[in-house]
């Protein structure tokens, strides 16, 4: 959220407001999901909260967790450092571990205007979901006998298990959305007569394009949409031993991999594009190749051979796919040809919508013509979206389109002028500078586990497994938390002492031409070192929770002491990434028994001296700071924590406590054996503090 900082109100509230900037991943997501937030929550081990964030922006979190095309990952700025965050896999983790499919969504009817959705694909369902949440009575008309559109008939089960889809649909019926299956809508007028006041047409694009070559109508040639639909209906379409799939998109990949699973001996994929130009997702192409699909790039179809039955397919070399203007206009070299043996040919060269004439909607290039802002068609009260209006697109785009339609229908039914959403969804952050990239630690990406290819091709079971808890935390903590870094929140306090400039491990703060300090938000890595070091306390992190979480925890303990009257023996400030991740620090949670209170903190660099002193004030006999050591994603954190500890220790000595009552467990290097095992260390520390406590009790007895 960006704020108008000039307004007096926002300045007064600046200390409590969220001043973080939209990260690139969120801007790239068609649904503008708060990705940074849920990745951060996963990193903190708060999976239920992460799921809540996901669910607030996404109507079908489980579906997206399986098959989202993750444009967010393309925009991830970590890709300049090493590799982007596995955002979709983390969402899958949050969805599975948070129990998404067990959660119901509540909705109640507020308005009387009835709305109709034609088509129950992702766009239609998303529109229905949001209209229902807004409080409208919603009816979805579906021509097929089952709900889901392309999600059910187009996407193979190994990518999206049907029980996931079914549970999403159950949730929608639970919200009170009426589904009428087996009901093709032939006339929009009829719907208006039935009392529906707004109609959303999302009939998808289900008509396969034709190749236009000799032999296309022979038995044995099938289009991919029909082929996939038959499989998904539970039929087993008969295929030959040698299958050739034509097309380079996701549908072609799905068809190839499905053919393998049906028992084809060889599957050849033929496409015009070169490997780099193929529109299918790179990861899926990779999976297909692993499973045994032979990808033939830069070939076009010349003819399908054979008299009664197909015997093979003749290909010609495709020289270029796009012309100088970047338009699809393939050119071929007829002198280079090859023949592939084939008894089944599956065409997957794109789909176009089939729009009934009777709807009376204007079309352009086969898709419904809509206003890009309002999604209104040429007919009053009729809106259109999804593949029917945009041409074949991804699920996440369809969901976003459906949500937009719901907002626009709401505007229409309430005679409101449609609000512009354009500027709200841009990230103000620029690219990382080479200097910053250099300074960021490289941490390799954790890929979610996959079933081996030879097992995969035997059945239509989902191939990707979920992260385990620790790996998910480790992957999530790689996030650079773009846009949530430090800022000079109170410029009037800033004495321009240049401390921030000198302590920043990434050299981000700089002096501007007016001799003021600037902390560019697009470079800041949110390590928090300048925040704990600023002598004027003028710097704060942009997110309110980041600013106050340690203080809140301490207050919580203060409250707990009041209620239970029990006092902690030891208070530990522990890196929460380390506590929940794969590192050895995780052992501390297990060892921490009676009397040892753990305060999970975002990073040990965020501990300030006064936090440590307050822990003693709470009554602790011993206080420790435990960092994740070698796993830390940020620079200089250990040195900073040590400095704060030293300062607190100087006070301890003056009040007659022992320096050892405040200790640090900070494994520095990867092979640092001195610091050893945290569990053993904590046991020793607890033993030491326990004996001190006992001594002081005995001494007090003696006095009495």
């Amino acid at each position, binding site marked *: 959220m960006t704020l108008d900082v000039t307004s007096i109100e926002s300045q007064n509230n600046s200390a409590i407001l969220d001043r973080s900037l939209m990260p690139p991943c969120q801007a790239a997501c068609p649904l503008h999901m708060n990705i940074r937030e849920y990745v951060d929550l996963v990193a903190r081990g708060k999976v239920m909260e992460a799921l809540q964030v996901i669910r607030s922006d996404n109507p079908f979190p489980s579906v997206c967790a399986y098959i989202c095309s993750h444009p967010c990952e393309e925009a991830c700025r970590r890709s300049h450092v090493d590799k982007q965050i596995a955002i979709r896999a983390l969402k899958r983790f949050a969805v599975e571990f948070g129990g998404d499919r067990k959660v119901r969504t509540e909705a109640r009817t507020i308005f009387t205007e009835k709305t109709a959705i034609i088509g129950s694909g992702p766009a239609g369902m998303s529109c229905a979901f949001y209209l229902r949440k807004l409080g409208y009575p919603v009816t979805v008309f579906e021509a097929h006998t089952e709900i889901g559109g392309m999600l059910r008939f187009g996407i193979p089960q190994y990518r999206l298990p049907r029980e996931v889809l079914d549970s999403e649909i159950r949730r929608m019926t639970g919200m009170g959305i009426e589904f009428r299956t087996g009901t093709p809508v032939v006339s929009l007028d009829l719907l208006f007569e039935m009392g529906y006041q707004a109609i959303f047409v999302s009939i998808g694009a289900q008509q396969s394009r034709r190749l236009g070559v000799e032999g296309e109508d022979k038995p044995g040639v099938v289009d991919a949409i029909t082929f996939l639909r038959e499989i998904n209906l539970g039929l087993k379409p008969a295929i030959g031993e040698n299958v050739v799939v034509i097309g380079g998109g996701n549908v072609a990949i799905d068809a190839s991999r499905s053919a393998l699973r049906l028992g084809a001996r060889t599957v050849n994929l033929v496409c015009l594009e070169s490997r780099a130009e193929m529109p299918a997702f790179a990861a899926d192409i990779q999976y297909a190749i692993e499973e045994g699909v032979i990808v033939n790039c830069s070939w076009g179809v010349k003819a399908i051979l054979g008299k009664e039955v197909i015997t093979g397919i003749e290909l010609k070399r495709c020289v270029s796919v796009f012309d100088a203007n970047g338009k699809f206009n393939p050119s071929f070299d007829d002198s280079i040809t090859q023949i592939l043996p084939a008894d089944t040919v599956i065409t997957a060269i794109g789909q176009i919508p089939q729009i009934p004439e009777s709807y009376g909607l204007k079309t352009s290039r086969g898709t419904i013509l809509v206003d890009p802002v309002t999604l209104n068609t040429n007919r009053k009260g009729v809106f259109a979206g999804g593949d029917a209006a945009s041409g074949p697109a991804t699920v996440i785009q369809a969901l976003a389109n459906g949500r937009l339609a719901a907002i626009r229908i709401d505007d229409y039914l309430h005679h409101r002028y449609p609000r512009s959403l354009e500027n709200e969804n841009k990230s103000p952050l620029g690219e990382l500078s080479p200097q910053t990239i250099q300074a960021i630690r490289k941490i390799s990406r954790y890929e979610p586990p996959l079933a081996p290819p030879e097992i995969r091709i035997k059945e239509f079971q989902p191939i990707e497994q979920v992260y385990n808890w620790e790996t998910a935390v480790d992957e999530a903590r790689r996030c650079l938390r773009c846009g949530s870094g430090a800022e000079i929140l109170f410029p009037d306090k800033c004495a321009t002492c240049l*401390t921030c400039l000198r302590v920043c491990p990434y050299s981000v703060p700089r002096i501007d031409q007016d001799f003021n300090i600037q902390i560019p938000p697009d470079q800041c890595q949110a390590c928090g070192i300048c925040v704990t070091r600023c002598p004027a*306390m003028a710097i704060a992190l942009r997110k309110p929770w980041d600013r106050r979480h340690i203080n809140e925890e301490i207050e919580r303990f203060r409250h707990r002491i009041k209620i239970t009257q029990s006092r902690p023996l030891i208070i530990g400030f522990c890196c929460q990434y380390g506590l929940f991740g794969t590192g050895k620090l995780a052992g501390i949670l297990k060892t921490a028994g009676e009397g040892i209170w753990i305060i999970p903190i975002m990073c040990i660099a965020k501990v300030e001296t006064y936090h440590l*002193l307050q822990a003693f004030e709470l009554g602790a006999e011993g206080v420790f700071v435990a960092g994740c050591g070698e796993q830390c994603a940020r620079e200089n954190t250990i040195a900073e924590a040590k400095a704060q500890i030293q300062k607190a220790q*100087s006070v301890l000595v003056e009040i007659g406590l022992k320096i050892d009552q405040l200790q640090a467990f900070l494994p520095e290097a990867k092979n640092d054996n001195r610091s050893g095992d945290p569990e053993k260390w904590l046991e020793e520390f607890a033993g030491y503090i326990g004996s001190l406590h006992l001594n002081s009790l005995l001494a007090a007895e003696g006095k009495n």
Partner: protein
Amino acid sequence: MIIANQKPSNEIWKMIQPYQRVLIVGCGTCMTVCGSGGEREVNFLHNALRLMELKLNQSAHTFSEFTIKRQCETEFIEMLTEKINYVDAVLSLGCGIGTQAIAERFDNLPVLPGVNTSIIGMGTTQGVWLERCVACGECILDETAGICPVARCAKGILNGPCGGSKHGKCESNKEMDCAWILIYKRLEKLGQLDKMRKYYPMRNFQTIPRPRRLIKSVTGGNTDGQLSL
């Protein structure tokens, strides 16, 4: 920039003993920059004193904190007027000037120094400050290649180096550069070595009239900026 060092907490602790309610006042300028009396240090001291209170079982004191922009300006000090009604003493984390300024403003209020004001200097790296000026009031840096012998020579002599200079270091501290060797080297670079030949009459340290007062007329001009008694 005025540089100071915070007093050890137990020294401060002893100082505040006679007073029940103590207001810790920070300074948002020099003391913030040198990390001795800014808002963070005020906060730290507040927490440290509270902890001492608890551990030493006194429970006789209460503390409050406030940081003003600059303790050496009466207008800023006015902001304390309301607060001092509820305290028995002020612990000032301003430099010696700030502490005195508060004392001057509030007649009946004990004002305690929380820092040892040390030098006029410059920061080099984080946490390191070097003395560069003693505010003598008679600047001759044009003659000494921009290096002050009064501040940087252990003896403060104007006609150096003395016989104690060895290999460019000072006899009083083998780690410390001899200021006069530095001056020589820099004059050499500037091509002004003849300035080494100039003789300065001995400074009379005893006659610096204290306290000094600087009066500048608003209209400016060279003759107005006079140091006088």
